[in-house]
């Protein structure tokens, strides 16, 4: 039986098709989010089905998650991304106890129990300063590709101290630092540190290992190291970190089907 998980995030839509009998992913895809969210999700769904050699009618249940989940009209049900990320990470890394998810516009910290169920969670979805948006702003200001930020940060000597709580004012700070001659590498490292520090406030003092890092920001080199420094504990990037929400949704879709 094939089940589908659709993670309609604020910046990207991700879809996973799962064969529940074989516990295998038979198709997945990603596209940028836009205004016509339902249409974009549907088109992506069709592409993923085609590449996976699956027909729509073969999909038993579709679960949508993420910021735009309610816009996915063809989903059978919706589940929040917190639950889905937890399930997705637990599937990939069964021993995970803490999940740090940093996306384009929000960040979350999810504590799991030994069975991979959500025990507790905290979110920052008010302030862009602890999210991937901050890195985008830096990349734009420095006129570099987002993907190159990691290698730049690796060359830093002394991370710049970024003091703003707001990414809008932080942009002004970055300009100020450039004008004052601060090395670009130090600025990037400073921004990464600032993002990571937001996680400390959500994490508190007791963070259980293993810590698994997911979300689009996990794919930017150096962010895991910044998180490790902030948390004082080792951090592991999840396999396929952008797809854990969609994967979790697909797994939950299969659980629901089994229940019915």
């Amino acid at each position, binding site marked *: 039986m094939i089940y589908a998980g659709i993670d309609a995030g604020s910046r990207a839509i991700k879809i996973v098709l799962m064969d529940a009998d074989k516990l295998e992913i038979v198709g997945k895809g990603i596209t940028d989010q836009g205004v016509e969210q339902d249409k974009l999700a549907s088109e992506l769904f069709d592409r993923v089905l085609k590449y996976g050699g699956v027909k729509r009618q073969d999909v038993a249940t579709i679960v949508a998650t993420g910021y735009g989940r309610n816009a996915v009209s063809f989903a059978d049900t919706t*589940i929040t991304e917190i*639950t889905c990320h937890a399930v997705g990470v637990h599937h990939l890394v069964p021993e995970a106890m803490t999940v740090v998810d940093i996306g384009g516009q929000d960040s979350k910290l999810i504590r799991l129990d030994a069975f991979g169920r959500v*025990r*507790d*969670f905290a*979110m920052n979805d*008010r302030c862009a300063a602890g999210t991937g948006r901050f890195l985008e702003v830096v990349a734009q200001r420095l006129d570099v590709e987002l993907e190159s930020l990691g290698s730049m940060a690796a060359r830093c000597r002394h991370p710049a101290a970024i003091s703003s709580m707001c990414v809008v004012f932080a942009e002004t700070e970055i300009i100020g630092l450039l004008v004052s001659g601060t090395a670009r590498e130090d600025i990037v490292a400073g921004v990464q540190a600032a993002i990571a520090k937001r996680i400390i406030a959500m994490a508190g003092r007791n963070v259980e290992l293993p810590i698994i890092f997911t979300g689009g920001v996990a794919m930017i080199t150096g962010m895991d190291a910044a998180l490790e420094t902030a948390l004082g504990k080792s951090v592991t990037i999840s396999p396929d970190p952008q797809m854990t929400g969609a994967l979790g949704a697909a797994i939950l879709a299969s659980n629901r089907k089994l229940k019915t």
Partner: protein
Amino acid sequence: MKTIIYTCPYVPAEWIAAHGLHASRLLLDRADSSFSTARTEGVCPYVRSFIHAAMNDTEADGIIVTTVCDQMRRAFDLLVRRCDVPAFLMNVPNTWQSLASQRLYLDELKRLSLFLVRAGGQSPPDDVLVETMLQYDEARRSIRAARPYVSARRYAEVMAAFGMNGPSELPSDAKGSEPLSGGVPLAIIGGPLMRQDFELFDVVEQSGGRIVLDATETGERGMCAPFDRRRLQKEPLIELADAYFGSIPDASRRPNSELYMWLKHELSGRGVRGIIFRRFVWCDIWHAELRRLKDWTDLPVLDIDTAGDNDTDRHRTTNRIRAFLEMLQ
């Protein structure tokens, strides 16, 4: 009848009422203050709304502000400069364990009386105060008794109506016969709620939960304990002071250990399985308790912060509550 408006639970409504004035505890709307000072970053949304309400209230003859919160203390400075309605700043001590602080609270009630008289009230003889206190006590008793039979939202509305209008017959829809059941039992803890915040109760129910303990300032936590009837007859003002100052726990108290003692008792007594922690961005007093609460309790705690931006908040809040209930279910 002249009206005195206030928001703080440490202001005894019966004291105002006994002076022959209408005590109206405001249920604030989320509103941006037209006064630019209040829109500065760092101003608590609740304080901002209070300033707006106080400046625009055409029926108030007096405003009482307390020192429980520093931002309110500064809001008073603003009102004195800008608002034509006379305002009174009541010093409610943060320390509560010493006789001196208890006496200070009592002295402040006496000083409040001078303000109420200036506002058109009359200093009440003891028998008038006793009668008023009994009315309020009875009303609180009825409200508390109604809790198991009404939805959390309705309960909050009934408490708010009591604060705004004083004792009255309990609405018929608040007199149920069968206690409500179902849903994951939750507590909501925090400072005061505003009118639009009552939507939270609906969202919780729609998501499969049920608020069984409203430990916000505008909820049960902000209601004083029942009066000692014997003492009330002998020394009504002292009993009033003791009941209000002595029985309303709050995060602003120093130390605030009694809040946790109260929570421990109530949380276990009502079988609560999860806590919604509701706070305003820029409310330091409650913000500082979030992590402490999480460390103190084994129950999962959901943080819901609001900056007073209605539309953005709605989606965020709903998402978090849904995730929380998914976790608990």
